[in-house]
């Protein structure tokens, strides 16, 4: 479980986040929406421990967390499978273990045949799959995702959303999913938090259902229309 109580942050040029209270249960996917610059990334960095908040308290009871960035951030000098195994190697796993876990993920992520290719030989979508594989390889129980599909074109994006939803459900992983796209938040989240423009404050908390496998698009559009009055303040003009 992850809880934040009264968390605020200031990089020195005015507050970025203010009075954030949130709670993430094991296996739950919490989507965080808001316009760019509202402190979403800072919130994730605080959750990950990369930065300490200037105010408030963070309690992280999850065992192991992994991060997927907006850009793939792969090592250009390592092949796809070596990039997937990066976190395992850092944790001291044996070479055989690294190979085994990476191979299984490559299969699962639809990257068969690309295992020995370098990042510059992969398409944008494949690179982001490798980044996702790297995060899942260490078997996290908390996944932090910072607009992971923001740079992908719409068709690819829908595929990746489906794949990620399946993976999160399969592995019972909790996730904080940051996005500026409300439809994506509705599709991915079990619940949604909307942040105001800077400094980011929580202006709405919306419980959501699981996205059904059939007629997912219709469900998403219906839900977005239904919750719009609650979250519209996150998107002025």
């Amino acid at each position, binding site marked *: 479980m992850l809880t934040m109580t009264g968390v605020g942050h200031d990089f020195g040029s005015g507050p970025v986040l203010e009075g954030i209270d949130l709670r993430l249960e094991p296996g739950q996917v919490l989507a965080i929406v808001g316009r760019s610059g509202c402190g979403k990334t800072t919130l994730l960095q605080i959750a990950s421990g990369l930065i300490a908040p200037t105010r408030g308290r963070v309690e992280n009871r999850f065992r192991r967390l992994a991060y997927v960035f907006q850009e793939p951030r792969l*090592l250009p000098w390592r092949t796809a499978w070596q990039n997937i195994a990066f976190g395992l190697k850092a944790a001291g796993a044996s070479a055989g273990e690294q190979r085994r876990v990476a191979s299984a993920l490559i299969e699962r992520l639809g990257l068969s045949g690309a295992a020995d290719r*370098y990042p510059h030989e992969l398409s944008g979508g494949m690179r982001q799959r490798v980044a996702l594989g790297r995060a899942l390889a260490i078997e996290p129980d908390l996944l932090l995702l910072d607009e992971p599909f923001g740079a992908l074109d719409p068709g690819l994006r829908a595929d990746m959303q489906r794949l990620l939803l399946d993976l999160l459900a399969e592995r019972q992983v909790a996730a904080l999913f940051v996005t500026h796209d409300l439809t994506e938040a509705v599709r991915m989240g079990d619940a949604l938090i909307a942040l105001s423009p800077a400094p980011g404050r929580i202006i709405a908390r919306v419980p959501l259902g699981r996205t059904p496998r059939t007629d997912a698009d219709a469900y998403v559009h219906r839900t977005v229309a239904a919750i719009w009055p609650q979250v519209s303040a996150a998107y002025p003009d």
Partner: protein
Amino acid sequence: MKRSAGLVWGLLGIGLSLAAWHLIALQYPPWAVPSPADVARELARLVREGVLFAAVGVTTVRTLAGFGLAVLLGGVSGLVAGLLPPLRQALAPVVTAIQGVPPVALIIVALLWFDANSSAPVFTITVAVLPIIFAAALEGTRAVDRGLVEMATVFRTPRRMLVTDVYLPHLLSYLFPALVSGLGLAWKVALLAELMAGSRTGMGAGLGMARVNLNVAGMFAWIAVVVILLLAMEHLLLRPLKRRLEPWQRGREGGGG
């Protein structure tokens, strides 16, 4: 295709230079300006007498010893200085000062401190090449992608692995041009040191002997050997090494991608 066209133009350039040299040599007596053929004959003589390979061997060992030391010391100190800003600020002016010392002055000092026939050239080469490697390693370390370092931090990468898996591979691509120019400098300094120290062995000694005998063709022959060695080192040692160490750069070189 592009590569072979480059080769053709390159060979043409060399051929034209040799022809121009030959034409100039025709205007002067051979003891003042020897022709390419005179120099080739002189080279053949040095090979026959067994002088050449012994001298090349001695100078190569000195050059590589000095160069290797410079790469080791400069690379490690540059990496550490890149990681620790206070150390960087402390070392930067020192290295700039060392870089300002002309190699000739270094040689004179080295002759007082070291043995002219072995350690003096090695010391001079090390001190002359070190700042180049240091600066490249420092800049390379500073230019590491912060995003990759942040990623490694999130995955709790141990410090040692951060160096071997993130910093060093990145550094290598930064270091390569410095290695090429450093090696070139190392040869030149080696020759200069041997010549000035009056070493009894090595190519500098051969060059000195040719000068004493007013054998201009012999001097040209030694110079040709240095140039050939330098090119051989770059294309037979450094470039294959780079290809082997950086398989991920293949297909990135040139315009493609």
